[in-house]
């Protein structure tokens, strides 16, 4: 009788799984599978109760393999692996079966088919679990320094927080000057303080901090390596420099959409974007008496479905500044919803109304129309709440546009091997579990590069990213997952097929008593498996995803 003793824990996840899949029946079925010595189902396997049950049953039934059938390994594998480890079982002797996100939630109207699928998936999970081998994680030293890409308010805040905790920071900024978007802003809501009063002191503190090395008009050319050991190539006006850092924070910000072709922008002289209005307000306004603002230009439309989050506040702030500058001026803000969420913004919106700024709600299917050929003279708009068409005299038309992702997000995402969301902003690992981390270890994201945010939110995200980056740097080492490739030297013929396939050049041919053999540097191997699949001698084994384990799953699919 093989000494494999498997325990299975099937989760109801409240009604999420139990409401569709017949969990008790599936648990009974699991008991019939080879080498399964124990099976149970619980309301919430991920709860403390569920976890302690796993730990208890491991010792009670001397389990040396654990299978959990519940939600998705992407969020809960670490939790259950740690539970196994806490019970003294090597955490790689654990297999996760996804019967919620990829079964009960997507076959809600076909409970019997979902139950049958759950049975198949569990059979496949057990088939793999039986062949799992214990693995040990390799400890990798972490260089206690961080590369911050982007010298705007987010990048600088992150750099300062890191430096104040004693870590060395390389702050790289593409432009000549630090400051980012705030440099060309006039005032900031909600205190209407001058943007310079916020950004200049920040720049000074960054420049004077001996732990922060500032590299302006510098671009990141290449990033190699992995958490704790990133080899970064910087390009400062053609001159290349190499630095070694442990962690990377992306704070490259975003840019304001230029609404070319909308409402006559570009061919009528008195149409500005809010950003252009900022400069005019900064230098001093002309004698325009009637100012009309149109919000949601190029946002919340099929081509760009997202809401720009802060553009309403930018518009209202500029409207307030215009009124404060010239109380006689009339300002209309045409909007499709006013996104002044929270305590401060709503109060600011009330203040704007008290100053006589008029807000008119329009709908997407009846957008405002511009009157006038080379200059805007008036704006026709259907006032939804009054239910009638209005013609507003207009000396200046201001279009409120959302922040959009930088064009070169694509290159940064390729270089750092991190993904973009469908909107083109950077995609964090998990909106709630890891809001400022990438799926790739050691790389973090904050500020408008992740999603349009205002200054305090950007600074909060910057500090949060710094907190996450500090964790591995303070500990001094990381133990990446032990999912790596290994060469069996009795099988390797030194044919060299694998060498160039490795994206991390972790493989090289080394001569050993006269014969050339492939050698893999475990620390550099990320476990993708490309070399393992290509090795014509079957000499490369992928830990935790060995050929035998995957083939066992394939064979278990069809009873």
């Amino acid at each position, binding site marked *: 009788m093989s000494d494999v003793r498997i325990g299975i824990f099937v989760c109801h996840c409240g009604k999420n799984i139990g409401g569709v899949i017949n969990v008790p029946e599936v648990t009974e079925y699991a008991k019939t599978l080879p080498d399964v010595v124990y099976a149970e189902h619980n309301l919430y396997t991920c709860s403390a109760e569920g976890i302690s049950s796993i730990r208890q049953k491991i010792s009670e039934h001397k389990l040396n393999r654990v299978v959990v059938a519940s939600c998705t390994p992407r969020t809960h594998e670490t939790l259950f692996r740690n539970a196994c480890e806490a019970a003294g079982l090597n955490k790689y002797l654990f297999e996760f079966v996804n019967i919620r996100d990829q079964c009960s939630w997507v076959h809600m109207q076909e409970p019997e088919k979902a139950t049958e699928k759950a049975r198949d998936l569990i059979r496949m999970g057990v088939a793999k679990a039986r062949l799992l081998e214990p693995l040990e994680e390799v400890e990798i030293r972490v260089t206690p320094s961080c590369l911050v890409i982007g010298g705007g308010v987010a990048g600088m805040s992150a750099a300062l927080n890191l430096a104040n905790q004693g870590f060395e920071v390389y702050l790289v900024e593409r432009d000549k000057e630090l400051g980012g978007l705030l440099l060309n802003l006039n005032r900031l809501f909600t205190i209407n303080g001058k943007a310079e009063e916020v950004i200049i002191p920040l720049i000074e503190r960054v420049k004077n901090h001996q732990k922060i090395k500032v590299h302006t008009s510098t671009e990141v050319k290449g990033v190699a390596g992995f958490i704790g050991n990133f080899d970064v190539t910087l390009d400062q006006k053609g001159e290349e420099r190499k630095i070694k850092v442990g962690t990377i924070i992306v704070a490259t910000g975003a840019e304001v959409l230029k609404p070319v072709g909308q409402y006559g922008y570009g061919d009528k002289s008195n149409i500005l974007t809010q950003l252009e209005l900022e400069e005019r307000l900064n230098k001093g306004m002309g004698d325009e008496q009637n100012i009309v603002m149109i919000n949601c230009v190029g946002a919340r439309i099929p081509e760009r479905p997202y809401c720009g989050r802060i553009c309403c506040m930018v518009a209202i702030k500029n409207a307030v500044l215009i009124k404060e500058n010239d109380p006689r001026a009339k300002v209309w803000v045409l909007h499709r919803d006013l996104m002044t969420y929270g305590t401060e913004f709503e109060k600011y919106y009330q203040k704007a109304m008290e100053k006589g700024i008029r807000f008119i709600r329009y709908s997407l299917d009846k957008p405002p129309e511009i009157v006038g050929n080379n200059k805007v003279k008036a704006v026709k708009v259907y006032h939804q709440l009054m239910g009638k068409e209005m013609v507003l005299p207009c000396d200046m038309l201001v279009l409120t546009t959302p922040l959009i992702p930088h064009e070169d997000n694509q290159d940064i995402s390729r270089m750092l091997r991190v993904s973009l969301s469908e909107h083109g902003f950077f995609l964090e690992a998990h909106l709630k579990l890891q809001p400022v981390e990438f799926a790739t270890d050691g790389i973090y994201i904050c500020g408008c590069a992740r999603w349009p945010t205002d200054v305090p939110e950007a600074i909060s995200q910057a500090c949060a990213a710094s907190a996450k980056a500090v964790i591995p740097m303070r500990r001094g080492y990381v133990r990446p997952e032990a999912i790596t490739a290994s060469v069996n030297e009795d099988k390797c*013929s*030194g*044919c060299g097929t694998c060498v160039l396939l490795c994206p991390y050049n972790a493989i090289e041919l080394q001569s050993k008593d006269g014969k050339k053999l492939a050698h893999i540097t475990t620390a550099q191997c990320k476990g993708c498996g490309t070399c393992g699949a290509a090795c*014509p*001698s*079957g*000499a490369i084994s992928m830990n935790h995803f060995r050929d035998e384990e995957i083939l066992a799953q394939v064979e278990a699919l069809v009873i």
Partner: protein
Amino acid sequence: MAKLKLACYWAASCGGCDVAILDLNERILQVADLADIVFWPIAVDFKHHDVEAMPDKSIDFCLFNGAVRNSEQEEIARLLRDKSKIMVAFGSCAHLGGIPGLANFNNRTQIFERAYLEAQSNDNPDKTLPQTSSKVSEGELELPEFYDTVKALNQVVGVDYYVPGCPPPVPIISKVIDAIASQKLPPKGSVFASDKSLCDECPRTKGEKKIKKLYRPHEIIPDPEQCLLEQGILCMGPATRGGCGALCIKANMPCRGCFGPLPSVSDQGAKMLSALASIYDIDIKDEVAMAQMVEEVVDIAGSFYRFCLPTALINRRRM
């Protein structure tokens, strides 16, 4: 020690393996001293019924070459298995299905039509096809049944050892003879070859495994020193067992994979395909280059399964 009893048989094969045994040249005398040949249709005149008369397990070892293509070969394979202590699958056909195994791209109907009806040299107005039994004036004539699928020996009877090669090279044959003579036989199921791929013993120098284009052997004159695959010639060496002394490579021709897959590989074709496609350095977004790649590897299945189609995971064409 009493002389051993040796049997050889020639099933679906070209006869090259029988000749290969003679390639032992003077060492054939050592074989003669070692054993009495009790059955070897090509060389000695023992008949089928003679074997049937022998007591079970009375033959010490049987060198069975050729694949199993029809009922007669199967019958004799089973007979020899019963009569022999050690059954050796001798040569690629018995070991993997060999060249005859490529018939598995077709079935009996297609083969008969091609051979007896379509072949230009035929004179078969009545379109007669071979029958397993046919009545003639003299009585009833029987022919073995022609199977749809060619099988390797171990898909019909239990095989103790495998001697790869098409034909097995002399050094390997001598090794088999010595092992049997000395009774120091490797574990059951062993293959008399290296457990590493041909590249391990290939004399050519290896650089970067990256190819832009694949050439047919006649299209370029390869550099004699450098690895053939790296020069764009399809060489099955990386996915084939070594042990043959790289005979073909030394003759400036690429390996065609006759020694079969490596020990931990269950499908030689799949593995060679995976390796080759991985090192092809073309842009996957370029449809033309991708189509070109598939055209350049002329007859992919034929090339990758040249000797081992019957023992491949998908061992015949679905009709």
